[in-house]
């Protein structure tokens, strides 16, 4: 699988840029992925609210949360989540949160 250079360290990602070893994730990696994968130059508190929740949910359940749970927990409207992450909850938010690629048509 390919690697991306991050601060002198090599991060293994799959061919679509999802992090392979989830425990290599940290907030700096999220900032790096946000710019690289979703062209987000500045992660705001709202971005972090979504990213942190997805990350916590994943660590507990080993899968990404449904959009309903993301909206309920963060209190954000659905359309606002899509504005925050133009690539969507899977290829945007979940990828930035260091999750593997979900199954299905994504």
């Amino acid at each position, binding site marked *: 699988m390919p690697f991306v250079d991050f601060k002198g360290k090599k991060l293994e990602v799959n061919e679509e840029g999802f992090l392979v070893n989830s425990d290599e994730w940290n907030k700096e990696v999220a900032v790096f992925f946000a710019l690289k994968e979703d062209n987000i130059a500045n992660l705001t508190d709202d971005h972090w609210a979504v990213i942190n929740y997805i990350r916590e949910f994943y660590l507990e359940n080993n*899968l990404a949360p*449904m959009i309903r749970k993301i909206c309920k927990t963060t209190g954000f409207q659905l359309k606002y989540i899509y504005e925050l992450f133009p690539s969507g909850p899977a290829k945007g938010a979940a990828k930035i949160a260091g999750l593997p690629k979900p*199954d299905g*048509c994504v």
Partner: protein
Amino acid sequence: MNENETYVSKDPFDEKIEQLSPADREKALKVFAEKINREFAVYFNSCVHCGLCADSCHYYLTHQDIQSLPAYKLGLVIGIFKKYFSFMGKNMPGWVGAKSFDNRMVKEWVDSLYGRCSLCGRCSLNCSIGINIAALIRAARGALAAIGLVPPGLQSTIETAVEKGNNMGIKKDDWLETASWLEEELQTEIADPAARIPMDQKDARYFYTINPREAMFFPLSISAVAKLFHAAGESWTLAADSYDVTNYGLYSGDDETAGMLSDRLVQGMAKLGCKTLVLAECGHGFKSNRWEAPEWLSKKYGFEVKSILEVVAGFIREGRIKLDPAKNQEPVTLHDPCNLVRMGGIIEEQRFILRHAVSQFIEMIPNREKNFCCGGGGGQLAMTQFSQRRLKAGGVKAEQIRKTGAKIVATPCHNCIDQLMELNKHYQLDVKIKTVCELAADALVL
């Protein structure tokens, strides 16, 4: 990825191929033989290598290598057919291009039949003989599936569907909560507390299925359909259990699993006693459940099957809903999903709806049954290892979109939507991607 490294990678999947035993390969050939009917045998003997298929294939147009040529891909399958199932091939293999089914060939099958084809069927339109190339490649995929060689992302999506009841592993409680949340949102949006998203409604006329991707991440398309049903005053329902319109068995080539997945909808229909099974905007789900499943299951349906596009077009024709195109001012183009249009026969309904729902509708060229695949079909979106090729192959579609000058691309397929979202980013198209029902719902006059 360097494509020249195909044979030196130490991927666990490749190791699995290297460790195949003669018995494994015999098993694959046995399953392959079972799939060869008279029609397929004629096809295998018919390719004259005229090369007309080359320019029909988005892989060939973007990669310009021989491995991407449909006739070459088909040739890999024909070589095996001749070697093991023809008199000449058994006795004088060199004369007829017969090839041995060794591990190297298995690897090339995987790389080519799974990795360089989206089963879009466009090559067949340009084939001077009319060979159904996609069907033959799918049959060969089925032989690989029989020995556990479905590429990982595609295989895990199938396993999730088989084990969890839907291809994203959504839990029942979460699905029910999502549906009732969408119902509340819909009531607020249209200021009508009578608006419903019915669940497990017995004897409803329409049994509506969804792509789990909608519930999981993109539920506005469910709300849009609910809004259209509500406006038409139609009797309909979602199901708590059997609601997944997808069927990745179509892509793996494994008919048994494909039949089992489609049978869930048959059982769901029986349980609720609905009249018509309505398939969401999902190309491969339509092809699977409208056309293929009765074959896989060897039984006729006892009910009617429709695409949601046919239902909504019917509402417009019958004057049951009113749309105002002025509500969608931006120029819209339409991407025709291969499985729904070229191979599914739903061609004009989406155009009829869009002409009523948007102010400016621009056709891409070519369109309808001659459309190019977006590149996401055939399981390509699930098979991560081939994703760079998929994005490159999508260049044909990206160029088509750019030439229309449209700001919105409508497409009645969630699989296509995901690929188009990636193309939008990769090729900087600056468009929005929507389902046809989303645009129709936005244009509703309530």
